[in-house]
């Protein structure tokens, strides 16, 4: 038990935990601007701070610049990238200020800094520094909920043209729900067919479900691309059968995403239901029939309730996997079919903003946890065992 626990901790909990922790850690700005952050600790955010903060800024930037020049650490670059995320313009403001105030000057630091870059006379850059002062902050967690703290520290909604993640979260939920319902609608009759098929055919039917299961997800997604593209197999067939006048736009839309997702997730729906139906006491529906119930009534009152655990397990499995889908919507979907994981990838690889990627991962994880908790509350895991 203990070795297994250590193994789990080291290869699973620890790396994922350290990544998720980036959502709340502020590690880029404090090493560069320690004195400035200290000078801003009692600042009310009403107007640009006084001389001590400017003097601290000058001292911090000179030291960081000297360190960067010697060791090539790029610490000012990383700090300005983090701050630019909060207040656009910081990416060049911080390095430019550091360069311009590097040589000694006479008089007040405030005047010198403002002469180097007038932006420091505004509240916004100082507020951004104070928000990034760490060691921990809720900046990224609020950002993925389309919220932001103002200079005084009150939480407010982000402007509409900068808000996106709530809509993406609902879309992720909606697409996953649609995929689950479709997979159930196709998977249940299929599982029923396999469970009730003569024993000569059942293995072949089961293999038919399992075969795509053993094919890589990317291969299956790419295959749908080939089938659905403008001059693809489906369009060519439709046109040769004169069912369509011109090529239909089958790719890069919600339909294509759902089609491929249901295809990929179907085994996860069929197998639990099949296992459940196989284990069901088939004497019960027969008894109902012999007592005069119609087939429909027998199904509705006896078979369906008995197979609910399988339906629950299959739906939960499919829904949770659908929440994390990335490749399929990215390749087959249009711009408004992208799900939460697309944005995790976007921040992790395209803009190299790991804090945002981690915060979005937390959001996805929380969504899954809520779904599982709801399931446990409404259905209960004890019922999920095959009957």
């Amino acid at each position: 038990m203990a070795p297994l626990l250590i193994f789990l901790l080291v290869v699973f909990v620890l790396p994922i935990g350290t990544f998720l922790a980036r959502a709340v850690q502020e590690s880029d700005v404090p090493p560069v601007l320690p004195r400035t952050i200290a000078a801003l600790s009692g600042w009310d955010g009403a107007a640009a701070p006084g001389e001590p903060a400017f003097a601290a800024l000058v001292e911090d930037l000179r030291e960081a610049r000297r360190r960067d020049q010697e060791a090539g650490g790029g610490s000012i670059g990383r700090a300005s990238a983090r701050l630019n995320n909060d207040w656009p313009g910081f990416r060049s403001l911080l390095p430019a200020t550091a360069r311009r105030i590097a040589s000694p000057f006479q008089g007040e630091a405030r005047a010198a800094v403002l002469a180097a870059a007038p932006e420091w006379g505004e509240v916004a850059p100082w507020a951004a520094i104070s928000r990034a002062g760490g060691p921990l902050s809720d900046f990224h967690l609020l950002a993925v909920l389309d919220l932001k703290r103002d200079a005084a520290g009150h939480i407010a909604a982000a402007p509409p043209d900068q808000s996106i993640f709530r809509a993406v979260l609902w879309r992720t939920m909606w697409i996953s729900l649609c995929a689950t319902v479709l997979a159930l609608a196709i998977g249940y009759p299929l599982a029923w067919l396999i469970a009730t098929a003569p024993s000569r055919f059942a293995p072949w039917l089961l293999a038919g479900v399992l075969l795509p299961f053993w094919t890589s997800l990317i291969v299956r997604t790419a295959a749908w691309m080939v089938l659905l593209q403008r001059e693809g197999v489906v369009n060519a067939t439709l046109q040769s059968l004169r069912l369509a006048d011109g090529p239909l736009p089958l790719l890069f839309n919600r339909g294509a995403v759902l089609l491929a997702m249901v295809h990929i997730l179907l085994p996860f729906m069929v197998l639990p239901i099949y296992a459940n139906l196989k284990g069901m006491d088939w004497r019960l529906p027969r008894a109902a029939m012999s007592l005069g119930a119609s087939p429909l009534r027998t199904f509705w009152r006896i078979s369906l309730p008995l197979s609910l655990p399988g339906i629950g397990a299959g739906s939960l499995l499919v829904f949770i996997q659908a929440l994390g889908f990335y490749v399929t919507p990215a390749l087959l979907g249009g711009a408004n079919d992208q799900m939460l994981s697309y944005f995790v990838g976007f921040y992790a690889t395209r803009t190299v903003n790991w804090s945002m990627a981690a915060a979005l991962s937390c959001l996805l994880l929380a969504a899954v946890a809520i779904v599982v908790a709801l399931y446990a509350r409404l259905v209960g895991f004890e019922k999920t065992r095959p009957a």
Partner: protein
Amino acid sequence: MLRRNFGAVLAMGAALLASGTASAQQRDLTIVSWGGAYQDAQREVFFRPFQQQSGTRLLEETWDGGVGVLRAKIQSGANNWDLVQVESEELLLGCEEGLFERMDFAAIGGEQRFIPSAVSECGVGNILYSFVLAYDRGRMSTAPTSWADFFDTQRFPGKRGLRRGPKTTLEIALLADGVAPGEVYKLLATDAGVDRAFRKLDSIRNDLVWWERGSQPAQWLASGEVVMTDAYNGRITAANQNDGRNFGIAWRNNLFTLDSWVIMKGSPNRAQATAYLNFWAQPQVAAALPPRIPYGTTIRGADALLPANVLENLPTAPQNAEGALQIDDRFWLDNLDKLNQRFNNWVSR
């Protein structure tokens, strides 16, 4: 016993370290480029001839970009790269962070040897490439000639491809809306300008599909998924030459950018690197690359040595360069976060 062994290990380590530093000072000139067909062409026309002519030993490496890689090299103190081809953003960031030596233009023949956009504090531009409007000649009865045509769904019905993201997309929208190239970034720096760009994009939003990898535009044109798209000029010409396509390019108001050579900070091979740059910067040497791969050269006088059928596919050809807009990296460095957010919001609405 243990102690003696420990001492021996320490001595051995010190010896290794010493020999390591010694070899760092004597190591061969290491040139880092982007691999693939591009580096193969560079090897053939630049690296090998330079080695033969100068007798300098030269090592090649390949990378995929990213200022973090260069930062790690310098920070570790074990940098083994001398001359690196960087993209414009890495040039800007690395120069600011002190990762590169200053480019000594006096030592490589003076600034006037290069086109103006190739000259910068830390690097010298070595290739120039563009985002252009590309279409399939075989599917278009009339050829689109400008970004305004790209937005004209009446005359040119069908889907259009654009690179996913605000960079290049917003510039194209403003150019299509009649903004002069010189005014684009001034306008984009204002909220009104950004609003105007998104309004223009709104007018064709249902006809847009977004590409993310440089190979997609040519694939989509070939499969008829889109009737026109923005694309890297080199990919389109390569598809025509290698895959037998008949793609057309509308050069008007193309967006161009440069890659540059930089010398890594503290490189022990500065003299050899400078010698290489001097070799490459001869017009007749630089002119050997474009016939193999359609990137524009940055050496004055090199274009004049190119055959007309090569030059017409280059962004540096006079008729192609007219009205072109250089992508402003400083603008994007400051505004990419905000405009990414706004773009993602707009695109997924």
